[in-house]
């Protein structure tokens, strides 16, 4: 069963792409991906992640920069010579061909004889756990099954890189988790370097070894899921991945590892300077995640008034309005009997620990 292609490395070297209109689709993207890694390209729609995927696949010729697969610069190769496997968002199975013919399509294009093709298709269908479907037509399969076929079809050409375009967007929630596990399993078995394009942060964080966050065509951060979540380098990453409260403040003192910030809401807190040193007296935006705020009984922290409490199962989220009029969300784990706070109750809030807030220079 094990496919020992051994993943090839993929380097996206200073790639910039302009639309014919002159607008930038992606700007100076650098990604150094090791063989066998799973990488997620994460960003909101229109951030350029699909353009980048199409550049790697060869459907779009980038304006500047290089794509290097293994030791080869592939920029001059058309898509059908790149051996890049793609699973499309809508699967793009050939509706008039049987499942077996779909999976064997790439082999037929390589001139493999029919018997070998069928044997190989059957082997791959067993790999994706659909051994009995080979004679059916795509429309007779469910969405999840179609996706497995699309995956088998992409794997059949023994690709050096596997690209997945929003692979789970069309699946319902329960099936999505099954397929995420399935794809991760197949990727581990085959060791193929895999790139997943997604706008779903949970998907990116749970599946990928490293995540590249894109916004407006620029690479915001490229790092492990915990880097992205715990040590975001930009305000965009901090607010796009997970939820965050943004609170304005002024730097009182700062060094490389910590900054003392006076929040406009009325408390002094210690925050992590996200990108380099902050200047004393400068305005900053402090991001604190809802789960990193707590209610305190003493006079520390800042004051607020409870607006609404939402019990969300494992957690309770409270919406609190601060003295300077900002809405702040506080997430409380439901331990024992968590009392629901009444609307209008006066409370005080403080960070759970000093380094959990991130401070970014305020942009005007």
């Amino acid at each position, binding site marked *: 069963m094990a496919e020992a292609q051994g993943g090839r490395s993929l380097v996206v070297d200073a790639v910039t792409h302009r639309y014919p209109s002159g607008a930038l689709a992606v700007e100076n993207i650098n990604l150094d991906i090791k063989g066998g890694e799973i990488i997620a390209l994460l960003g909101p729609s229109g951030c350029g992640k699909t353009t980048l995927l199409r550049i790697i*696949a*060869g*459907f779009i010729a980038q304006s500047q920069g290089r794509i290097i697969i293994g030791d080869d610069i592939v920029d001059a190769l*058309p*898509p*059908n*010579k*790149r*051996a*890049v*496997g*793609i699973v*499309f968002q*809508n699967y*793009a*199975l*050939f*509706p*008039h061909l049987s499942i077996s013919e779909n999976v064997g*399509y*790439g082999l*037929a*294009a*390589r001139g493999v004889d029919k018997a070998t093709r069928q044997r190989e298709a059957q082997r791959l269908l067993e790999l994706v756990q659909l051994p009995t479907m080979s004679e059916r*037509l*795509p*429309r007779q399969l469910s969405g999840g099954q179609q996706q497995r076929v699309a995956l088998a*079809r*992409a794997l*059949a*050409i023994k690709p050096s890189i596997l690209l997945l375009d929003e692979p789970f967007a069309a699946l319902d929630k329960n099936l999505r988790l099954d397929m995420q596990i399935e794809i991760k399993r197949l990727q581990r078995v085959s060791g193929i370097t895999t790139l997943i394009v997604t706008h779903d942060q949970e998907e990116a964080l749970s599946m990928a070894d490293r995540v590249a966050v894109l916004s407006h065509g620029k690479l915001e951060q490229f790092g492990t899921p915990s880097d992205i979540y715990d040590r975001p380098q930009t305000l965009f990453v901090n607010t796009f991945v997970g939820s965050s409260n943004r609170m304005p403040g002024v730097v009182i003192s700062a060094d490389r590892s910590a900054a003392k910030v006076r929040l406009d809401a009325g408390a002094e807190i210690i925050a992590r300077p996200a990108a380099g040193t902050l200047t004393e007296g400068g305005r900053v935006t402090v991001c604190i995640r809802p789960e990193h705020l707590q209610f305190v009984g003493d006079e520390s922290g800042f004051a607020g008034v409870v607006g609404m409490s939402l019990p969300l199962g494992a957690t309770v989220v409270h919406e609190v309005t601060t003295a300077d009029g900002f809405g702040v969300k506080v997430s409380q784990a439901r331990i024992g009997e968590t009392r629901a706070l009444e609307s209008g109750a006066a409370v005080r809030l403080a960070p759970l620990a000093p380094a959990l807030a991130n401070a970014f220079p305020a942009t005007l």
Partner: protein
Amino acid sequence: MGAAPASRDVTSYGMGLAVPLALFFLVFFVAPLLQLLWLSLHNDTAGLHWGLGQYLHFLTDPFSLSVLGSTLLLGAEVTAVCLVLGFPIAWLYQRVGPKLQTVIILIVLLPLLTSVVVRTFAWIVILGRQGIINATLQSLGMIDTPLKLLYTQFGVVIALAQVQMPLMTLPLITALGRIDPNLDDASCSLGAGSWRTFFRVVLPLSLPGIIAGCTLTYAAAITAFITQSLIGGGQMLFMPMYLYQQASTLQNWPFASAISIIFLLAVLAVVSVFTTLGRLSRGYGGA
């Protein structure tokens, strides 16, 4: 609430609205057709003696059969030319920007906006002895004597193909537009070149459009009285003109009726072959 009558389907409309059209068809289509059939079953022009003589005459007369044969062949040739020339236009339409799409659709539809007579006379100007083609070739010194283009099978096929082109192109544009563009990319990423993609993916998936286009073009080409007669001239005889001569000039109504019925059946046979092919290929298009 309460128990409403269960069988009342609120989405169905009364058939009453269809009555005017049904009456219209009954009076102006079904009745004349039956009259035609009735006429054709008479052995003499006066319509006094019943019999299958007119049919026997047609089916045993080599001349009549050759007219039928050349008409059906003409339809096949026109359909083939339209398919070969129309497919690339439809294919192009799906691959250009919206502005060019407007231009292409205008070019495709423009012939429909001019009268068939005008278009046919334009072809006479183009194909004639002193027409545009001959004049150009002669002034370039490529030919000494004018080519005979008008009043030939070639001329009729070309003119008819131009006249009937929209009937082929429009269904093809629709069929190609239904093909998921990702299939092209998928085929390409799996290592297939553009010809393999065309023959294994695009062509099979556009079959419903090809069949619809062929049916329409064929039916229109073999019944195109004006273009056939004007471009074909006196030397070339096709079924519509044959029919016209028998009915109008020779006043042989029973024989003309029999020709109509035979022609109708021949066309129906060809169309039903196309339709059967269409049904067989339906497995492709859907999804």
